[in-house]
């Protein structure tokens, strides 16, 4: 078999070619097919610039020779093969390198600003150009996680959690560049490792080493919640500096080990991953447990994509696993993405693309995956010199911020 009948199509109107079957060599690879498409486009449009394409055969990325791929996928060579082509994602070059003077434990980006938490006990706000705008200092220990609550106009609310067992709610005025501690949330008996804000932006949930999940209100109030101030003047002074103390709305217990990651799947449903090898789904209203997904390794991180409704988890082995949270029978791993050499410490679905996710690992590499090609990642980012602890996408989904431990973003 030397020739295969193939028909090319694409969803991108810019690169449309004639809808006729071509006879192409079976041994051709991605580069050869890309050359064919470029030649066709050059013939159709004047002034076409060379573009690298990637090819999908029945929803799977072509990574080997076409003949081999068809053999492994059990596609008959008799009929005309439908091949979709898309513009190839090229490995992005680091646009900015933000140097931190200590390890970065967490990162969260929105369309304008990047928020990072660091092991030097501070959180920082950076502009997209990589300029340090603000340093948020107040914790007495390492900052473990950060999150934006909301941004309206010039003032925005942000959360930082720390090893000192507190979560702090800050208000940042970007015009005056002032940051003010609004609330100090106390209640955990261990380091608070993760925090997630609910879609309505009024509540947030935190997960801690003390095996608890706690739900807090994210709305800043002026009145003091419950502290009576007159009999403890010294403490009052401290609370003014640290913000008002706040207590949790609800405490959810059920995990047997430390909670490593928490997220909101929608306004009523919470999802948490833990060192006890389980991912649990909770009802945020009642605090009851809805279902449990059991793995066999410690979970480091999870991410949920509302576009494809799947959970991705990174654990203390080399695999990124995809789960279907709607399946009720427990452990249903849809896919396992294997290419890392160390623990997967961070996974994040793309907010705009339903097949793409990014993962970071302790082997210093960040990888971009497409679920249609589960054998190998789309590309690697090996620019980091030390362990990757966290990754995030910017809000428009176009840029990838990968933030790494080693004082560099």
């Amino acid at each position, binding site marked *: 078999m030397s020739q295969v009948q193939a028909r090319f199509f694409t969803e991108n109107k810019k690169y449309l070619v004639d809808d006729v079957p071509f006879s192409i060599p079976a041994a051709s690879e991605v580069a050869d097919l890309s050359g064919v498409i470029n030649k066709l486009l050059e013939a159709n449009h004047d002034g076409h610039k060379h573009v690298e394409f990637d090819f999908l055969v029945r929803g799977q990325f072509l990574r080997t020779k076409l003949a081999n791929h068809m053999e492994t996928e059990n596609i008959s060579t008799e009929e005309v093969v439908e091949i979709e082509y898309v513009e190839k994602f090229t490995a992005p070059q680091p646009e900015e390198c933000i140097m931190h003077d200590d*390890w970065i434990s967490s990162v969260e980006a929105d369309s304008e600003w990047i928020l990072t938490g660091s*092991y030097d006990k501070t959180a920082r706000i950076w502009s997209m150009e990589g300029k340090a705008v603000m340093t948020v200092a107040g914790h007495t220990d*390492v900052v473990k996680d950060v999150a934006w609550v909301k941004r309206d106009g010039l003032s925005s609310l942000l959360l930082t959690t720390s090893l*000192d*067992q507190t979560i702090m709610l800050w208000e940042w005025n970007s015009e005056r560049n002032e940051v003010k501690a609004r609330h100090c949330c106390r209640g955990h*008996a*261990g*380091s608070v490792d993760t925090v997630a804000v609910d879609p309505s932006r009024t509540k947030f949930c935190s997960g801690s*080493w*003390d095996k608890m999940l706690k739900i807090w209100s994210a709305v800043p109030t002026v009145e003091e919640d419950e502290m009576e101030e007159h009999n403890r003047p010294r403490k009052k002074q401290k609370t003014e500096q640290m913000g008002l103390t706040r207590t949790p709305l609800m405490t959810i217990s059920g995990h047997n*080990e*430390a909670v490593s990651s928490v997220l909101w799947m929608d306004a009523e449903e919470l999802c948490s991953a833990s*060192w006890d090898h389980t991912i649990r789904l909770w009802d945020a209203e009642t605090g009851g447990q809805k279902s449990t997904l059991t793995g*066999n390794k*410690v979970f*480091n991180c999870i991410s949920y994509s509302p576009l494809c409704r799947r959970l991705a988890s990174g654990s*203390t*082995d080399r695999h990124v696993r995809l789960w279907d949270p709607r399946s009720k029978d427990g452990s249903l791993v849809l896919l396992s993405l294997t290419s890392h050499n*160390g*623990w997967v410490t961070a996974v994040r679905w793309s907010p705009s693309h339903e097949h793409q996710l990014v993962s970071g690992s*302790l082997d210093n590499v960040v990888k971009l995956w497409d679920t249609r090609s589960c054998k190998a990642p789309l590309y690697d980012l090996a620019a980091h010199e030390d*362990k990757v*602890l966290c990754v995030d996408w910017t809000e428009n989904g176009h840029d990838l911020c990968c933030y790494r*431990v080693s004082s560099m973003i």
Partner: protein
Amino acid sequence: HSSKRSLTKIYAYGHDQDQRKFWLALILTSVTLQDIRNTVGNIPMEWYKDYPHIGYDLDGKKIFKPIRNKDELDEFLDKMENPDYWRTVQDKMTGADIRLSDEQVDLVHRLQEGKFGDVNFNEYEPAIDFFSNEVMIHPVTNRPQDKRSFIPSLIEKEKVGKLVHAIKMGWIKPRRPKETTPQYYDLWAKEDPNSILGRHKMHVPAPKLKLPGHEESYNPPPEYLMSEEERLAWEQQDPEDRKLSFLPQKFACLRAVPAYSRFIHERFERCLDLYLCPRQRKMRVNVNPEDLIPKLPKPKDLQPFPTTQSLVYRGHSSLVRSISTSPSGQWLVSGSDDCTVRFWEVSTARCLKTVEVGGAVKGVAWNPNPSICLVAISYDDTVVLLNPGLGDRLVSTATDQLISSYEEPEEVKEQPVQWTVAEGEGHEQGHRLILKHPKAVRQVTWHGKGDYLACVMPDNGSSLQVVIHQVSKRRTQNPFRKNKGLVQCVSFHPIRPYFFVATQRYVRVYNLIKQELTKKLMANCKWISSMATHPGGDNVICGSYDCRLAWFDLDLSTKPYKVLRHHKKALRSVAYHRHYPLFASGSDDGSVIVCHGMVYNDLLQNPLIVPVKVLKGHTITHDLGVLDVTFHPTQPWVFSSGADGTVRLFT
């Protein structure tokens, strides 16, 4: 006379005493009463007791009893007066008294003496032998032969005719001719000539001495001379393991060869080998070697266990002697020869805290009680209890309060250890209590409840080798009055009040409440280096410097249940996992070996031990590899610290 003859007969044939008496009585009767013959026969005479007669004579007339009217007195008088009384007998048949004549008395005497009754009878007459072996010319009888002896017998003729007929008919066959060749019976005919007989089977000749080869030469070819490396390796081997018992040497000439110093020794060993060594042939059993291997489950089925190196905790600049994890599993503490103690976050390998102490740290131990946040650190002769301030703030402050709330007892006892409270800069670093010991402390270990702390000060000369501190009361005890060898390490029983003390070759188990020795385990190795107790408490593993790991089942025996020799060099540390059936050993060869060690609740089932993984990662520096291993308290992960200054996490 006739009765005399019959008596002779009696004496000739009736040898029986009773028979003789009977005959005697009969003869006497017949002699004395020849005329009055009583015809009643041989009946008991009592039958005539009530009659006046006593029988009948030959004519049929009654024989009347003689009148007997003698009473005892008359009898007596008669006996006294009558000179013939002794020879008077009563005839039973007639009842008459008879006086025996002199002849009769004589006969009685002779018979009593056992002689013949007849005086003239010669009992020793010469015998004439008629039928002797001498053939006489005359026949004994002179009778002429009968006629029938001259005519053929008809009966015989008939018999012969029958035989002839039978032969003719073939019923009788002529006798086979006798075989003339002699027949011998072969005793060993059935024996296999190739088989070895029992006596020969057991004979094992003494081994012959190997003939001297080129190595023994005074001028060996250069390839037989050992290089420097080979010589070193030869010297390091045990004398029994050496291939050659001497070092080949080269001399310029035979004259330069010195006297062989080991000659006597060698001859002596040969003699010992010849006459002291029992030789016996080992029974070879034809067994498939595959069958001898115990059926062990595959390591794949025994997951989870650590398989790969995941994190490296870098920061120490010298050997890391000891590591310990916090009870929650969030933190790790390591003590190093660079005089620092570092606290690490387990999940990210981040060093969160470094505390400098005044000497190379020999041992660290995190308090196993989750409600107390204390770490014991030993360096030189000091043990420091340090509050790292990690984990729950409440626990940390509660610990500080617990220590500061101590009140001095009224009567202060003399203690072997000096307790001081840390102040100033040390207190800010976290130091809380400082215990000054008289000697260098090698190991510290906590009791499971977290109040008692045992310290080991190895010293062969002194009785103060092990001390047990009670932190809440700031009291120190020396549990042992006597010194029983160099103490290597100690360990508390996780549940019961037992205390394990490992000396060079033995592990002694003491009952702390009864204050007595409960058991003495023999490790069968040369020098124990480390020991760990199973969380169930019934099993102990010991690592030794001669590459062995011995597993003791305390219920089974005082000898090791199993000895594992997987490491190539000395073992430095052993550890059990608190929940998973795992144990690990770290060695100077730079590897950590993880084994599955399942202990069953069923007392009849012995523990299952399967080596599952060799973990490598540490580089060997100064001939030292892994110095300490410890398990994560909740996950199947193992930490190892090495001489290369790193701590590694295998998951």
